[in-house]
């Protein structure tokens, strides 16, 4: 507190978030309305306007960020019911390959493959992981980490669905505007949808499973079925991202199961602040462009990227979004002492 007169003291007042957002206060004045609405409207408008401004390469980066964002949201959703996944690439790969094979062999357009890949990928993920929903913590993480690698090797060894060459010359998106906006809107819908869902009774039960699964079982709720449902939802979201990128690149290969798709979403959620969805979204909106802008540095890129990640985790362990949220709800003033 050097530089400030010693008779002053910082006074911090945490706003009653509940008071300001739950009752009549919320609509008592336009300042209060803005207070509530701005944090939701600003990111929505920003994301909807960005595709108009960003062209070419950076437009693609935005789409890429949205897809990583979906994977990070899907990761955060699983984490909120106690399933710590290190295998987001499994979901991504399922979506990518379902869309890829449909498009390659049957020449179906994205309008058909995307919904099929989203639902099919979700079903495949839930079915494949349902035997291990009893595993918790690091054991579940290990299984999810291994599965994409296993599938990757299987594709390589058997040569099925394109083998190590992948499937190329797939049906592209008709119109770049439509695809870009589809990415952005899906990302936003998923973000706000998850935030809403987790505060409903359904999400409450999921969070309770994370806190104490035995207590949930003694409340007569089939926790394994709920976890499988959560896997389906998370799997579908991840699969959408995979299917979208397949059509975006007009190619699907073994790289769809690459470790990047597993690790980067976790990093994004850790950076942004897990458990809020907004944190995961924010994290991927920071990490993906950062990673791309460091590309000019060549070999040093990954080193710098890791440095930024480590620094942020040490300096802001709670995550950026938690920090921002706390500050937003706080008044800080200097009051005269004595």
């Amino acid at each position, binding site marked *: 507190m050097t530089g400030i007169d010693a008779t002053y003291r910082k006074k911090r007042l945490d706003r009653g978030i509940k008071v300001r957002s739950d009752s009549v206060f919320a609509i008592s004045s336009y300042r209060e309305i803005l207070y509530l609405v701005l944090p939701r409207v600003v990111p929505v408008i920003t994301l909807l306007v960005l595709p108009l401004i960003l062209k070419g390469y950076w437009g693609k980066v935005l789409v890429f960020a949205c897809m990583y964002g979906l994977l990070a949201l899907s990761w955060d959703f699983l984490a909120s019911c106690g399933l710590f996944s290190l295998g987001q690439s499994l979901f991504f790969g399922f979506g990518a390959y379902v869309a890829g094979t449909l498009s390659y062999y049957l020449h179906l357009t994205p309008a058909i493959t995307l919904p099929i890949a989203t639902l099919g990928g979700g079903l495949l993920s839930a079915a494949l992981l349902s035997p291990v929903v009893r595993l918790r913590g690091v054991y579940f993480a290990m299984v999810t980490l291994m599965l994409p690698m296993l599938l990757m090797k299987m594709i390589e060894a058997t040569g099925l669905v394109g083998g190590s060459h992948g499937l190329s010359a797939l049906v592209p998106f008709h119109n770049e505007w439509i695809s870009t906006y589809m990415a952005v809107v899906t990302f936003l819908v998923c973000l706000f949808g998850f935030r809403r869902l987790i505060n409903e*009774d*359904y999400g*409450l*039960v999921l*969070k*309770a499973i994370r*806190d*104490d699964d*035995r*207590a*949930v*079982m*003694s*409340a*007569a*709720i*089939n*926790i394994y079925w709920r976890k499988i449902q959560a896997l389906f939802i998370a799997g579908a979201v991840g699969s959408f991202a995979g299917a979208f990128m397949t059509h975006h690149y007009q190619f699907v290969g073994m790289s769809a199961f690459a470790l990047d798709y597993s690790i980067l979403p976790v990093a994004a959620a850790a950076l942004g602040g897990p458990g809020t969805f907004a944190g995961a979204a924010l994290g991927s909106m920071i990490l993906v462009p950062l990673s791309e802008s460091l590309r000019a540095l060549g070999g040093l890129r990954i080193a710098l990227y890791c440095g930024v990640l480590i620094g942020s985790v040490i300096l802001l362990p709670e995550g950026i979004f938690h920090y921002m949220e706390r500050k937003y709800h706080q008044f800080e003033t200097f009051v005269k002492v004595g």
Partner: protein
Amino acid sequence: MEGEPLLKVEKLRKHFGGVTAVHDVSFELRQGEFLGIIGPNGSGKTTLVNLITGFVKPDSGRVTYLGKNITGKMPYTIAGQGISRTFQMVRLFYNLPAYKNLIIPLSSPRVKKLRGGEYGERDDVAVDLLDDMGFERDSFVPYKMAGSLPHGYLKRLDLARAMALRPNLLILDELFSGMAMSEVASTLPLIEKFNAEGLTVIMIEHRLRELFRVVDRIFVLNFGEKIAEGVPKEVMESDAVKNAYLGSEIEET
């Protein structure tokens, strides 16, 4: 004894390694009965509860509830049929407000069915339940984070969570441990009231004075075996119990 018993436990047995935690325990429970289970520490009381409620699978034996075999079923299946329990070490959702803890059982398929699809106002039901448990409705207590509540409240919150399921059979695993005398004094009549309204209760307790006041019948476990059964006064005067239980240990009452 007329008709089918509500709960029938036959020769239930469970080993943990070399230790026989529960050794061929059998008992029957009629609808509306209030049964006490006592026994020294480590005599297998909690394991018995875990076996009945499905948290631990028995090595042998059979549990029949309402004529149906529920041995080794999943805990949520058993809870869904109306056997609700509290935990000796309370298991709650500490990151949720107290009343939100009750939303979990209240949103279970069982309660939905019992309420006949009637939706909404679940928060009110939760707060009502907590009010019964001595969380004053108009205070801030029901809305506080469960993690910030004192131990006595947590125990009662656990009881409320168990009751939210609208059970037929309530199993209380040392509900009163760690509760203040005043809290016990206010909670006990509540359980008596539930029992008078037709709820069947199994109560495991170390506070014998309170237990004997309310139960119809008790049985005593020692080293996993049932050594005596009957009305409290007779049981406590039997030699086996005196030796195994009171003779070897000083009870805090």
